[in-house]
């Protein structure tokens, strides 16, 4: 009896925590359906929502451009980071080679340095390249993809290495006995088996890049600006378009939500697998 009561209580607590965590999102969505006037007076009218802000946000700020830039840069960076990490992680998991340990340590070691310390050298490097060579990295998609790839690859290597260690060697060896070479076995047998890990890595890298502001603020001027920059333009010195800001918040949360739910199955597996091994 009392055990049931405790269970009920825990259930209720779970719902409470969930409600608390979802309430800011609910508030975001509700506010996006009001007018600026209602927002500024706090006189929410939940019964007569308006989608006005969702149509006007595209006109007052060139949000399409920011959204597109974010999608391109984050997808490309997450893909590159995952691909590099898969190769490096496999090598570290399977092969003994000179310097392997040092490399492993070095990869983890890069995470000890605060990211913002890289800002100055990267900024100066990009500007120097632009002014002295034809290599265009400053304010380009390519530049931002490179930066985000470089940032997330070390963590991703660490992730992937554990996934590969968890996959039995017998699987690849069987494939190699059947005539596959090492690379064939990697692509045909190991990668599919590590799919949850790949998806998890990709999604984490994507989310990281989606929210990043510090670097994109310094390394872009116009062409490669992402949502974290663009969303600030709804706030001017002389006016605040709060409803549109909220609408933009909803719109920029959607791709992330979709990505998350679409991959949720693998993501949960990925997290638990990592948890057990790590």
């Amino acid at each position, binding site marked *: 009896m009392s055990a049931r009561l405790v269970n009920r209580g825990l259930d209720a607590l779970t719902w409470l925590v969930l409600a608390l965590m979802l309430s800011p999102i609910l508030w975001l969505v509700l506010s996006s359906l009001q007018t600026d*006037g209602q927002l500024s007076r706090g006189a929410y009218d939940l019964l007569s929502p308006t989608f006005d802000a969702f149509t006007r946000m595209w006109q007052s700020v060139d949000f399409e451009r920011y959204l597109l830039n974010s999608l391109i840069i984050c997808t490309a960076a997450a893909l590159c980071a995952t691909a590099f990490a898969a190769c490096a992680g496999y090598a570290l998991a399977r092969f003994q080679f000179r310097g392997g340990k040092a490399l492993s340590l070095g990869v983890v070691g890069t995470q000890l340095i605060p990211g913002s310390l890289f*800002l100055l050298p990267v900024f100066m490097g990009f500007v120097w390249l632009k002014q002295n060579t034809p290599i265009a990295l400053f304010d380009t998609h390519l530049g931002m993809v490179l930066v985000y790839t470089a940032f997330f690859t070390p963590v991703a290597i660490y992730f992937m290495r554990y996934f590969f260690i968890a996959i039995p060697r017998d699987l690849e060896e069987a494939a190699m006995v059947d005539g596959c070479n090492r690379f064939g076995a990697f692509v045909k047998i190991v990668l599919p088996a590590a799919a949850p890990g790949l998806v998890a890595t990709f999604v984490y890298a994507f989310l990281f890049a989606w929210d990043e502001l510090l670097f994109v603020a310094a390394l872009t*001027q116009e062409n490669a600006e992402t949502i974290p920059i663009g969303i600030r333009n709804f706030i*001017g*010195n*002389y006016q*605040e378009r709060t409803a549109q800001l909220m609408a933009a918040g909803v719109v920029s949360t959607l791709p992330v939500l979709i990505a998350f739910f679409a991959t949720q199955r693998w993501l949960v597996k990925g997290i638990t697998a990592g948890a057990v091994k790590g």
Partner: protein
Amino acid sequence: MPKRLAVAVAATALALAACGGEDNSSTDNTKAAQGEALQKGVTLTLWTMPNSPQPKEDLQKMVAPFTAKTGVKVDVQEVGWDVQFDRIRNAAVAGEGPDITQAGTTQVPFFAALGGFMDLSDRVEEIGGKAAYAEGIWNTTQVQGQEGTWAVPWFTEARSIYYRKDVLEKAGVDPATAFQDLDSFKATLQAIKDKVPDIEPFGAPGKKAYDLVHQVMPFVWDNGGAELSADAKQSTINSPESQAGVEFMGDLITSGLFDKSQLERDGTQVENQFKGGRLAVWIGGPWVLGSIDRAEDDTWSEEARANVGVAPMPTGPGGKAYTFVGGSDLMVFKNTKYPNEAWALVKFLSSDQTQIDYAKLLGMFPARLDPQQQVGDSSENHKAFFQAIQSGRTYAPIPQWGQIENAYKTRFGNILDSAAGVGTDYSAATVKSQLDAAAKEADGLLAQSAG
């Protein structure tokens, strides 16, 4: 995060400023501009901040006649206020940026001191020079103790008192004398509090507002105080006169005339409280005047929209009425490949008609005297702002001002908070100790650059 950003970029700027000295010889702006033909087909990049409802398109339209006439194209790029300071600084020190940028009037000296901008002294005579602008506004293009004109004023704002005509009537106060001096200002608020209980008499933003210092300083000036000594070598924010000014505002809170809840809001949010009919009196800029007739601005309640009155700021014990005058200037980057074309665009944006049209779109005032006068003549409410601009005051044009303003802002915020019952108990000693701390920080900042 913003703090980390600020620290990192400050480091960027320092390092770049240190190593950027030698290779800045590229563009020589002393070349006489007159008579030189403009290159057709080139594109100028212009950075602008979110000023108007559709910032980019509005300005792009505004410069269309310039392109039609000269064949010089203009690429308008929008830079948010949150990032504009870092972006402009980075562009100035790295030499990688647009041709022209908008800059807040109080930022100009800082940017100019970085060395990435063109000295426009030889060219400004073409648009009338100093004589074409009100004194306070022209000062924003200078750096104290240094030769050179680093910017051209673009548009202007000054603060005046907004009040509700209907509320004043209910309170039985004559609008003509209601805000004449600091005493009648206070008496008016008291009358509103006593006779019109369903509206808050007055409100102003607290430490969240970027412009908190602009809100407080007019009262300091009224009382004979100042932010810095005349030679800008020392802070005077803790002088007895300055303290009296700050205390005037604190006392409004303790006597219940100032709605404390407004201190949690930023400038625009308090503005919306006035527009929504929650405040009877409020101090604000001309852009609010422009939004009265805009039906799609739904932040207005019908009562408030129909009853807006504007009065000049009250006079202080010294007999003068001060107000803050600000706005934005245009600065030309030294590294521009097209100095003549860039100047031609600045000139175009300084022509009377463009000034009036753009200022109207923004709900601001033109920066130049002649068009200013024309806008001032357009209505009784506009006239109050025109007068405010003529007697407007701004801060000493020194590179460190931005940092000093931040130090003051924190302390002013603390003082107003304590008057509202948050933190230390409010007393003359509290105010004094906060202002002493502000002065100390400011003196430290002033000494750094001197050494």
